[in-house]
């Protein structure tokens, strides 16, 4: 069984936020509007968070913007606390959210140390004609439930169907999330962390590799690469 993971090279990332936009479009994430955004209620499955860092070969401190999707932890702190099994880690390591089951208690959102889970404060709305360009592969979430990054799980299902129709095994390049596909700086990679020949496995063995809040024992499946020093 594959263990899907992502690598983000911060030395290549330009913080252009193309990944953020690609994610919103791909996953039918509604635009928040300025009022809700100012109140801290914009839904975003992938945000750029400012972290203190130091550039490589220098002591100059720098504020760096780091793309932060759900880390799809191997030991997620968010899933055991759900009172109704609305969020679980599946056998391929995706931390999934079941919208029709979620009661909206937001225990998972408070238990997540990365704060990457979002809540639907109101009914999602799209200004015309945006509602006509919603993706049919991703369900629109109702008001009052929690949602989160899925690593574009629907793309895996499509790729699998495709491979099955063509009578061949799934290849590494068949399945990439929208953010990885979009990154103009080629700073993101995606694949099976357990396959030693995959790009992500090779990159995650790099001396530049680190994981966010690794010390909490969550086992994040998003690996960052950087020559500089980082601190949260």
């Amino acid at each position, binding site marked *: 069984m594959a263990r899907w993971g992502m690598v983000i090279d911060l030395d290549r990332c330009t913080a252009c936020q193309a990944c953020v936009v690609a994610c919103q479009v791909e996953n039918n994430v509604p635009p928040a509007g300025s009022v809700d955004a100012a109140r801290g209620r914009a839904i975003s499955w992938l945000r750029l968070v400012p972290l203190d860092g130091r550039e490589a070969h220098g002591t100059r401190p720098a504020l760096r913007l780091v793309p932060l999707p759900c880390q799809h932890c191997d030991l997620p702190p968010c899933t055991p606390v759900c009172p109704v099994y609305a969020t679980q880690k599946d056998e391929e390591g995706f931390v999934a959210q079941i919208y029709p089951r979620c009661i*909206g208690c937001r225990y998972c959102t408070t238990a997540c140390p990365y704060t990457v889970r979002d809540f639907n*404060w109101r009914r999602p709305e799209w200004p015309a004609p945006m509602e006509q360009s919603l993706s049919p592969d991703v369900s629109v979430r109702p008001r009052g439930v929690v949602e989160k990054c899925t690593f574009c799980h629907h793309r895996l299902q499509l790729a699998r169907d495709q491979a099955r129709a063509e009578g061949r095994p799934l290849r590494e390049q068949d399945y990439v999330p929208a953010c990885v596909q979009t990154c103009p700086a080629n700073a993101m990679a995606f694949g099976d962390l357990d396959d030693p020949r995959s790009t992500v496995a090779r990159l995650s063995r790099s001396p530049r590799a680190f994981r966010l809040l690794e010390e909490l024992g969550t086992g994040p499946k998003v690996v960052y690469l950087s020559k500089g020093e980082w601190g949260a």
Partner: protein
Amino acid sequence: MPDHERHDDERLFAPVMRVGRGFWMLAACAGVLGFLGLVAWLVQLRRGLSVTGLNVPVYWGLYITHFVFFIGISHAGTLISAILRLSNAEWRRPITRAAEVITVLVLFFGMGCILLDLGRPDRALFVLRHANLRSPLLWDVIAVTTYLTASTIYLYLPLIPDIALLRDRLPQRRWLYRPLSLGWAGTPRQQRILHRAISVMAVLVIPIAVSVHTVVSWVFAMTVQPMWHSTIFGPYFVVGAIFSGIAAIILATAIVRRAYRLEAYLKPVHFDNLGILLLVMACLWFYFTFAELLTTYYGAEPSHMAVFLSKTEGRFAPSFWTMIVACFVVPVALLARRRTRATVWATVVAALSVEIGMWLERFLIVVPSLSVPRLPMEAAPYAPSWVEWSLFAAFVGVFVLLYAVFTKLFPIVSIWEVREGRDRSIADVARRVESYLPDGGAGP
């Protein structure tokens, strides 16, 4: 019938027999607050949690604060009265019921807070259908419902003889009292069974009460969030709960005493004793708070320090220092001296101060840890909306009203227990003291 018993009947039955102007004024005020809360609730049902002040990352706010606060107050009754009963504290007799009613009523409001907090209240019963026993929230559901059941039984059992008294006095309300009195006639066999049942429940209720607030704390402590993930939280919450519970008993008995002119039953000595309990709990609370803060400060882990500093010198500093003053400085200053403690007003002021302080304590546990997440994010500070405040006001108003309604249906001071104290306990206590002495107190 001896004279003092007739006197007994007069004073203690009076609130049940007559409904005065004060009650209707209270009902009107509570009705207004209740209506305001209903409007707020309908607005929230229609527009979702967007009408609250909650945001990312402060996903929990006043509703969860009030959940912890109300469940804490619920330790007033059942736990305190159980301890006083089991320890044969004779002064307990006129206050146990006033305390137990608080417990049963306030638990409903605690559970109501959770319902208010749900994004999908229509799916609330999923916690039964799809119960995940690994979730501390589910432990809460189990603990609180167990506590509600046990404390309702524990309130009801000592009510039975008094209901029988009312059944015989108020023929127009026989429809209510007759079935509830379960055919009580005060036979020696019935008395034996009742005393036994009360003792069993008193013992049973103590571990349940302790577990309830421990589990409430575990909702926070089981996460890895800064200043939530603390081993001290279970006992810390239990101490805080008993603390705010005793303060609630003092306030309730003071109001009942004043409203129903029960000075002869709820005497300064009762407030003196409750004041000593409150003083002890203030010291215990301070000990726990100090231990918690010093450990965090000395360890100085950055993510914990961010929350710590937001409390001691940051955005939450005014609330934090008010809490320290209200929970420790004020009660200790008022209650440490016998002279001030002996006056009822000082104990009442201390209790009021403790309630305010404990409300702040609950708020300061829930909100700051969420406001300063480990990974920095652009966040607007949490400011509760009118909907959240209105629902709190409505809960408090309706709670006070239901409490008043209870005093109109049942005697708020246990009549038979006061009589039992007068008829039997004086001799019992004398015998007990004699048994402590050498030669059974006979002396040389």
